[in-house]
């Protein structure tokens, strides 16, 4: 069964249509990349998939594991296994990092009919996962994303993804603001999660992230539509000749 199906998706902000008939199917263990210029609707797509308020889906359906998520709030979608790594992770002053991570993991566990995670075991799990991503213990003790550099925020997103073990991960411009070293660490983190059945949707403006996270399929988004799909060579083509031909086509 496909993991994520996006069917005839139309979405607006206010009266303004942003997404105009998106169709996309992602199977387990596939990595898809959506590339597009600024204003093509990339971030809107990630927010609509994650269930953010303020976007009106005017037509179409989104199914996760065959189940429509259209009536689900953002938290229900997350507990059903959808994960969004934010382009701009949000600072939460006063919300302690560890209690935030534990709250998120427990929400997922309770939904799955499991007990809440043991406090001490969890601290150990978090430290190990953080260590692999080059996240220092000191960062874990701080409030969520407060005082983190751009690169640290992105690593923290990947840490959350590692702990939440989603079925379907959406990475929204995860490469923006990352230097090459951070890009490599973050990509290794994503690749390490690529188990047999996780699906990944990488949303990006530039091709360079796709040197590290190799996509099976690449789609070009322009003016709210997927105007071309192909394999990883399509990304290289865009890198060379830009988005001009697609935006004109759209």
């Amino acid at each position: 069964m496909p993991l994520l199906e996006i069917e005839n998706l139309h979405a607006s902000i206010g009266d303004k249509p942003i997404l105009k008939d998106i169709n996309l199917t992602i199977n387990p263990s596939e990595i898809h990349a959506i590339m597009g210029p600024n204003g093509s609707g990339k971030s809107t797509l990630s927010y609509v998939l994650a269930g953010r308020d303020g976007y009106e889906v005017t037509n179409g359906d989104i199914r996760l594991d065959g189940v429509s998520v259209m009536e689900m709030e953002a938290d229900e979608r997350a507990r059903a296994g959808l994960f969004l790594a934010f382009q701009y992770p949000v600072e939460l002053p006063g919300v302690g990092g560890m209690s935030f991570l534990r709250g998120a993991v427990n929400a997922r566990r309770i939904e799955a009919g499991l007990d809440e995670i043991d406090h001490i075991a969890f601290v150990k799990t978090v430290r190990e996962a953080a260590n692999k991503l080059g996240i220092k213990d000191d960062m874990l003790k701080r409030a969520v994303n407060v005082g983190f550099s751009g690169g640290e925020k992105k690593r923290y997103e990947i840490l959350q993804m590692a702990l939440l073990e989603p079925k379907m991960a959406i990475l929204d411009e995860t490469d923006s603001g990352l230097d090459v070293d951070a890009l490599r660490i973050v990509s290794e983190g994503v690749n390490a999660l690529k188990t047999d059945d996780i699906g990944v949707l990488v949303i990006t403006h530039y091709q360079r992230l796709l040197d590290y996270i190799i996509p099976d399929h690449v789609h070009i988004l322009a003016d709210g539509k997927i105007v071309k799909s192909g394999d990883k060579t399509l990304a290289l083509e865009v890198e060379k000749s830009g988005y001009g031909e697609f935006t004109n086509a759209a």
Partner: protein
Amino acid sequence: MPHDVVSFERLAADAASRYADNGWPGSKDEAWRFTNINAIRKTTFLPADTAITGSSSSENNFIHFINGIHQPVDNISFNDGVLCQKLSENAALSSALAAAIPQGHHVADFALAHASDGLAITIDQVVDNPLQLIFDYSGDGISSHAVVVFKLLPGAELTILEEHKGGGAGLSAPVMLFCLEEGAKLHHARRLIESDQRYHLGLNLVQQKSKSVYSGDMVMAGGDITRSETQVSLMEADAQSYLNAVYLGRDAQMRDVTSRIDHDAPDCQSFQRIHGVLDNQSKAVFQGKVKVKRYAQKTDGNQMSRTLILSRDAEANTKPELEIYADDVTCSHGATIGELDSDQLFYLMSRGIGCDEARQMLIEAFLVDVVDALDDPKREWLIEPIEHWIKTRVS
């Protein structure tokens, strides 16, 4: 500064005659413009029965008040360094109170007019064990007016945990004076957690000599109309004052945090942080006046008020007043009133945390921020009513 000697009886009699003349403040009184106390004005309260006193505790440094009446002083055990007397038996401190009462202060006059006596507590060293002031209220139509004067001698240090709790449709009007001599330090933590039908109009007066430090931390979570007024006089150089407050309002409750800080000497600092959350049709006002006299150079005065509104019907008012006559000062004030941040809410929900829980987490973070830097037991003791309020009310 020497005061005229004023006995407690004289103090009470003078207040009674002023109260008879002036009564309660009206809505035209600037200090009460945002705080409607019609419900209090219309009620005739009877002073509490002085025969019913607080019960003694096996704990040291624990003073129990029932409807404002403290247990007999002889029944209280204190740590070394704490001397407690009836205010009527300490003319120096009753005189100090008489001199400190702001002119024409309705609440002070009401309280002193009706108080049967007060407590005079002198601290002459560093006292590690916190002094607990526990105020229990009960009964309808009863007014309570505890009067307590503290004097911290030079170098003395004390932590006070003050709690107002209990029920009955009554009025509490505690009046307290804290005189901090040179280098004295007072941590004053307060929880106002009376039940929903009560009224509370409190007045705290703080007088600070050189190098003294007053740290006031308050959580205002209970009562129908609840006002806490603090007036600080920084009388000598290098004194510091911190006023932190959290207020929580819901239904048709009224919350009033009023402060006045007089910088009367150079090189003093004052810091005020007030965070409030208002739900339903509740209303709040923070009015903070900072007055810097001409010779109070190098004053550092900061004031920040932030209010989180959970309902379209709630109302928050802020009234900062800076009156500065010195030319070499740093004074700032800021005020924000807003709703929960939708980006933050979405971020939490996108991690699987339910909407109610996410809201609770954000509200708690906003409020706890004010008291987070405190040491335990004060920190835990102040966070407890905040958490309780959030858990029972936010959904």
